[in-house]
């Protein structure tokens, strides 16, 4: 049988009632709290027993204290005098247990009890939750900006969706703690005035644990959904972040062991937090990943290469849904076909290129973007966005400008499509089309030499319709 176990704490910081109950239940099951720390709470096997636990806060204490202060120790002595032995402490939180049957509680005055919780909250817990909230809001704002610039691209990237989900869940967790605390404090203050009693706290541990598991599950699903080499990068990056966080904790713990003062430790730790991530990201991502990129690890595998004017050119052999051969008669065999893109649970967006070799540039090329909408609800949104971005005017807004591109709706029936648009520059119709089919939208930009016959249009309709 296991002698020790670790539990992800994830307790709401002011939830002294919930923590006490949790620890008492653990004791009844034969688990005695040994140590609380940032890495989870450690329990030791013991005879199942009814033990009383008490969670109190000592506002003066800090997570950077090299050792408990004299005041803190004299507080512990007082508690021990009434049978309350210290089980463990971490920063302000002090956890005691008592084996007596009806012990005098540590807190017998709700007013002072509330005051100490408020002091501790203001000194550290709330500060860290506000900071975390600021970080998440910043990340979410960045996500919104990315979404606004390229909504279709954003929705088709699992990584964007995953990070949006993570940050929103983290924000929800922070807000739960902050709003929960303030509403509890309001009720507690009122209750003391009216009844003189302490208001039991209620935490969000189960919801938060569920959030953590959901994030982990989605991360796993995300890793399996992307290519293995990108998954490797994602795993390595997460490991690096984890190692970095442990290194920062370790550094602070080392300073504590060296009996460095709390103030110096706090300053040094803040500096490390500010510098280390940048240094590590800089070194790792520029040097190492840069090297990996250069080594071609991320490059698509070429079918073969050839030399042209002293340079090496790659020929790819990706399968494309639509080929030049579907549009015109050709017996040219030197095409390079490549298919790049992203896919999420909402959309997939791929760019297809079919190019002749450099020494055969007279052969026509074909390029297009294909967006597949997996959720019908998003279709009209994607349609509007792609239509908006279809003409390339690079910020030119005056419509009478002779090179001003505009999308003109054309007859979709010969394409077998629901909607069809073509780019016009003045009266000149360009060889660029936006074709909307049942669940996909095709932005087709073939070589101007490819004249799309009725048969070619029908072929396109057969492939995508």
């Amino acid at each position: 049988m296991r002698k020790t176990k670790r539990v992800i704490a994830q307790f709401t910081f002011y939830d002294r009632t919930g923590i006490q109950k949790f620890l008492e239940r653990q004791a009844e099951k034969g688990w005695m709290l040994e140590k609380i720390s940032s890495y989870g709470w450690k329990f030791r096997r013991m005879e199942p027993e009814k033990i009383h636990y008490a969670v109190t806060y000592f506002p003066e204490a800090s997570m950077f204290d090299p050792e408990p202060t004299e005041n803190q120790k004299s507080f512990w002595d007082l508690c021990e005098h009434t049978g309350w032995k210290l089980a463990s402490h971490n920063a302000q939180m002090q956890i005691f247990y008592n084996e007596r049957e009806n012990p005098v509680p540590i807190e017998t005055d709700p007013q002072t009890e509330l005051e100490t919780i408020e002091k501790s909250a203001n000194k550290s817990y709330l500060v860290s939750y506000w900071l975390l909230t600021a970080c998440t809001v910043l990340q979410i704002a960045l996500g919104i900006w990315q979404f606004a610039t390229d909504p279709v691209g954003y929705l088709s990237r699992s990584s964007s969706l995953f990070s949006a989900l993570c940050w929103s869940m983290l924000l929800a967790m922070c807000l739960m703690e902050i709003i929960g605390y303030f509403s509890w404090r309001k009720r507690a203050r009122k209750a003391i005035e009216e009844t003189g009693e302490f208001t039991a706290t209620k935490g969000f541990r189960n919801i938060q644990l569920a959030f953590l598991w959901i994030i982990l599950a989605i991360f796993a699903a995300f890793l399996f959904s992307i290519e293995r080499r990108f998954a490797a990068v994602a795993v390595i990056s997460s490991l690096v972040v984890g190692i970095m966080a442990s290194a920062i904790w370790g550094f602070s713990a080392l300073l504590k062991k060296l009996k460095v003062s709390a103030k110096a430790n706090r300053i040094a730790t803040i500096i490390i937090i500010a510098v280390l991530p940048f240094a590590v990201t800089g070194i790792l991502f520029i040097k190492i990943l840069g090297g990996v990129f250069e080594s071609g690890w991320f490059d698509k595998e070429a079918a073969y290469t050839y030399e042209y004017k002293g340079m090496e050119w790659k020929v790819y052999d990706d399968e494309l849904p639509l080929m030049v051969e579907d549009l015109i008669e050709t017996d040219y065999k030197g095409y390079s076909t490549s298919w790049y893109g992203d896919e999420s649970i909402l959309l997939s967006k791929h760019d297809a290129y079919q190019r002749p070799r450099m020494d055969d540039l007279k052969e026509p090329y074909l390029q297009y973007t294909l967006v597949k909408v997996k959720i019908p609800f998003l279709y009209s949104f994607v349609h509007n966005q792609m239509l908006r971005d279809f003409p390339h005017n690079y910020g030119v807004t005056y419509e009478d400008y002779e090179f001003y591109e505009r999308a003109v709706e054309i007859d979709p029936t010969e394409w077998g499509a629901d909607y069809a648009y073509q780019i016009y520059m003045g009266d000149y119709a360009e060889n660029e089309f936006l074709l909307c089919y049942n669940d996909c939208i095709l932005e087709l930009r073939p070589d101007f030499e490819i004249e799309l016959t009725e048969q070619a249009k029908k072929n396109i309709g057969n492939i995508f319709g």
Partner: protein
Amino acid sequence: MPRTKFQTLTEQMFYILLCLKNEYYGMDILDRVPAMTNGRVNVGSGTLYNLLEQFLEEGFIYETKVEGRRRSYIIAPKGEEMLDKEVERLKAQLADYNTFSGREEA
């Protein structure tokens, strides 16, 4: 936290101050208060620690000896004043009770 709540004393504050008419260690107070009140009033160790801090801040008590983590205290004139004021209030309360409950019963 300097507070205005020392307008009146709670029972626990009252007995801590009363107890400190003699010099005592913090721990002694934990035993003395229940003994003085026949177990009617108990002061928890956390509450005691915080109240002693607040009393010191307000000048209600003095710290007499600090031997490492063992500290002893004694009441200060300002604390005596607080106690007296509280007793006056309680006396008035009792007098009111006698006057009014007696009349109503009659």
